């Protein structure tokens, strides 16, 4: 634990199938949390730890990452983009960067939310090393079996986990790792192979923030965590008689009309047109260019760019993706729901999940836990329920 690692490889090629409809047209790393894509938090974490040489592995809808980078490239840092044409696995992704890495380097997932403190210790680790974390639901992940701080084996998604210490997918490697990568497709398999050939792999537990998004409702949890750190900044124009409580962030060009009530933590993007008489309640993120008409109440939800929300809506624990047009009087109460994703059934407390570009006519009622696919249309006064595919037409 002495020399600091100077280079980071961030893997952001993955799709995130279980996060559909949000990942139909963007990689998981580009999901917006409090108005910023997850990968932005990862890049910020490495930069704050003094790493300014970053290699990004892009694949699935890489243009979304490139477009974002071209507008928001963080300063003081050299970014190299490498393409993984077919997303075969994390080890295959890592194999693509062999020509671009120098001595020791960090490997991080671009789609897990971390903070600078999460890796502050780990960047001093001697390769080869894996960062570990204790979690409540280890069977979602690779569970680590550790002996005297050394890795014995990684067991992927065990039914009966032997411990609650899991693989964070953050690694410290040197070039030696490339001798073991092929023909493996996933990094845990590479590590198991290295262990079996007698190579010591140290484990380092982190106490910092490390949050994964596997299902659409996880986005709301992450949003809540990030908003807790929010500090108030008021751009734009706030008309008279607007009540602002707690930490509220308002972007430039935005107008909040009279008699609106904003209870933080709350972040509102640029050029939004909100109110009069709109209630935005805690742990809500509003993107850029959003319009919200009078008498709408939104609680603990994420509203993406360019969304239009008409008057008289109630929206709780919901995620509404970009460009949706909600004519008015949408009822999306949160409730106990059983949601089916890829054949798995989950009980969650949830409002509505709406994919991008949906149009909902007046008076739609969304059953708790409904997932509406991208570019769907729902006619007036309809009840929507269950998991509806992209381009659904509800008549």
């Amino acid at each position, binding site marked *: 634990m002495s020399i600091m690692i100077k280079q980071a490889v961030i893997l952001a090629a993955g799709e995130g199938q279980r996060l559909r409809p949000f990942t*139909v*047209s963007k990689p998981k790393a580009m999901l917006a949390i409090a108005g910023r894509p997850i990968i932005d938090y990862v890049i910020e974490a490495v930069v704050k730890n003094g790493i300014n040489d970053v290699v990004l592995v*892009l694949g699935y809808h*890489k*243009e979304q990452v*490139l*477009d974002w*980078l*071209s*507008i928001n*490239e963080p300063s003081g840092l050299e970014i190299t*983009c490498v393409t993984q044409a077919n997303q075969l696995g994390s080890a295959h992704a890592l194999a693509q960067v062999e020509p671009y890495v120098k001595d020791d380097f960090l490997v991080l997932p671009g789609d897990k939310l971390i903070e600078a403190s999460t890796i502050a210790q780990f960047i001093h680790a001697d390769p080869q090393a894996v960062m570990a974390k204790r979690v409540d639901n280890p069977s979602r992940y690779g569970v680590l079996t550790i002996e005297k701080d050394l890795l014995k084996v990684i067991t992927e998604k065990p039914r009966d986990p032997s411990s609650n210490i899991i693989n964070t997918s953050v690694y410290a490697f040197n070039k030696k790792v490339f001798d073991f990568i092929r023909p493996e497709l996933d990094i845990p398999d590479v590590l198991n192979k290295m262990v079996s050939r007698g190579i010591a792999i140290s484990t380092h537990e982190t106490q910092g923030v490390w949050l994964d998004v596997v299902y659409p409702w996880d986005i709301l949890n992450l949003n809540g965590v990030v908003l807790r750190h929010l500090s108030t900044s008021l751009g*734009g*124009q706030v008309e008279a008689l607007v009540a602002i409580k707690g930490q509220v962030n308002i972007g430039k*060009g*935005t*107008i909040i009309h009279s008699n609106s009530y904003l209870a933080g933590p709350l972040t509102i993007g*640029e*050029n939004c*047109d909100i109110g009069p008489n709109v209630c935005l309640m805690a742990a809500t993120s509003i993107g*850029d*260019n959003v*319009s919200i008409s009078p008498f709408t109440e939104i609680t603990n939800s994420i509203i993406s*760019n*360019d969304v*239009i929300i008409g008057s008289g809506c109630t929206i709780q624990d919901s995620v509404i993706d*970009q*460009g949706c*047009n909600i004519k008015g009087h949408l009822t999306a109460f949160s409730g106990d729901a059983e949601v089916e994703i890829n054949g798995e059934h989950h009980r969650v407390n949830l409002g509505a999940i709406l994919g*991008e*570009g949906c*149009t909902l006519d007046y008076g739609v009622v969304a059953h708790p836990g409904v997932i509406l696919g991208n*570019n769907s*249309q729902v006619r007036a006064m309809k009840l929507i329920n269950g998991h509806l595919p992209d*381009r659904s*037409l509800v008549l």
Partner: protein
Amino acid sequence: MLNCLGHLEYRGYDSCGIAVSNSSIQVYKDAVRVAELKKAIPPFEGSLGIGHTRWATHGKPSRTNAHPHVGCQNEITVVHNGIINNFLPLKQKLIEEGHAFSSETDSEVIPHLIEKYYAGDLEKAVERALADVKGSYAIIVMGYGENALIAARKDSPLIIALGDHENYLASDVPAILDYSSRVIYLEDGDIATVTADNVSFRNGGKSAKRTEHKVHWSVEEARKSGYEHYMLKEIHEQPNVIRDTIGNWLLDGEPLEDLKRMSEGGMETLLILACGTSYHAAMVGKYIVQELLGLPVRAELASEFNYYGRILPETLAIAITQSGETADVLLAIKKLKDVGCRVVAITNVIGSRVSRLADRTIITRAGPEISVAATKSFIAQLMVIYWLMMHYARVEPKRQAELVLQLRQMASRVAQVLDKESEIAGLATYFAKYDDIFFIGRGINYPVALEGALKLKEISYIHAEGFAAGELKHGPFALLGPNKPVIGIVTNDATHQAMLTNIREVKARGSPLATLVSEGDDSTDTLADFVITVPQVDPLFSPVVNTVVLQLLAYHIARVRGCPIDFPKNLAKSVTVE
């Protein structure tokens, strides 16, 4: 210097060269692209230099015709952008006086003229020489043994960028963005003396002051950032361009008083002038003005207007030019101003010439556009027109409110089109094998058909034509057949039925057929070989989504055919000559 020249290649790139002053003046130039010159050039040393990338007007692209040009004594070196109208008599006279010319260019008279008047004071010699010259120019002069560069402009763009103990001169901002963001725009008639630490100006024989501007473009914005071509990058930037353009509308007051008066009076007429892709924006603008303001309006090509355009009793003209330097548009504005017409310019370049000529300038927020094929600047122009006309629309308040909301969602609608890129790329591989492709549209999508054809022809070299669909039977039908595919743009407005009739007629003649339809419109499913759906928007906004589809189609066809997409042969980005 070579780096800077690389950033200027969008202005022309048939030849290039540089000169560096040290113990002597060394010149290296050739009829090659900057990248090739970079490989071939010997190492030069010195703290003063000039460079040029050329776009032939007088004399073919060749090593001798390339700039910099030098005088007889190899002491006066000049780079020039523009046209010297009286170069023939000047050249004749200089030859009689014993000067020897090596090129066929108009530009070469400048170093010889300066040489003729040079008597120890380079600035004076330049001033005297320019008094003899008629035409347009931006020049930079380097003299042997001098520690200053002398620059001058008239009717051609030139900027100075300020650095730390170093200063730069260039035709346009992207050239120097790597080194400085502090920029001074020269004005017509300015002569500037620039050393490493000092910049001074003279105009009309008197010293002048010029203010410094801060450029907000980042170097990153002027780079390709991971994309194979600038054009694709610029296509993908369009959702953000739209958000930026409409960004400040909420807080904006009165965008254009003239239009307010006109929309209330209703007796005046409006003229929209432009060239190239901007002309297609002007044509779409014509439909928008008719629909929203109900005013009489005409859209004219500036190049035609200059020679044949009768000045009708128009009181307001809108001139659209991406670069702000398009010679034909500038000339037209001068003509209009002479008869007392108010002129509003829509341009992408702050401080460009057009902004000095026009009474009002509205800047599009497209950022620098490097690819010769205009994409995001076109969409930004449309957004400005929508914004202006929407503000003064004389339609039912309910429809106006609905249109404003739709406009606020336009960025997402374009993003939805971009999500279809792989589908469009698949279609491109099919179309790439044809030598002729026709685009048809009606009403507000007729200009989109023209724009689709223009994009395709300029980057893929496929013969492409756009037609008003109703005109097919008046001639173009004779061309149709199995080797002549047609792309039909179907709009959900009054033209829908008529368009379907045209599409059936095309199909009956055996042409392969693709259609662009709104989502949910299945009327062409049984007729067309390919159907591309675009997000549902009001017909008034359909040009935005349809154009983006056609941009992607043109790009991918050109890519399949292996064309140099960003720098097509024979084309330059901003056309600063008539």
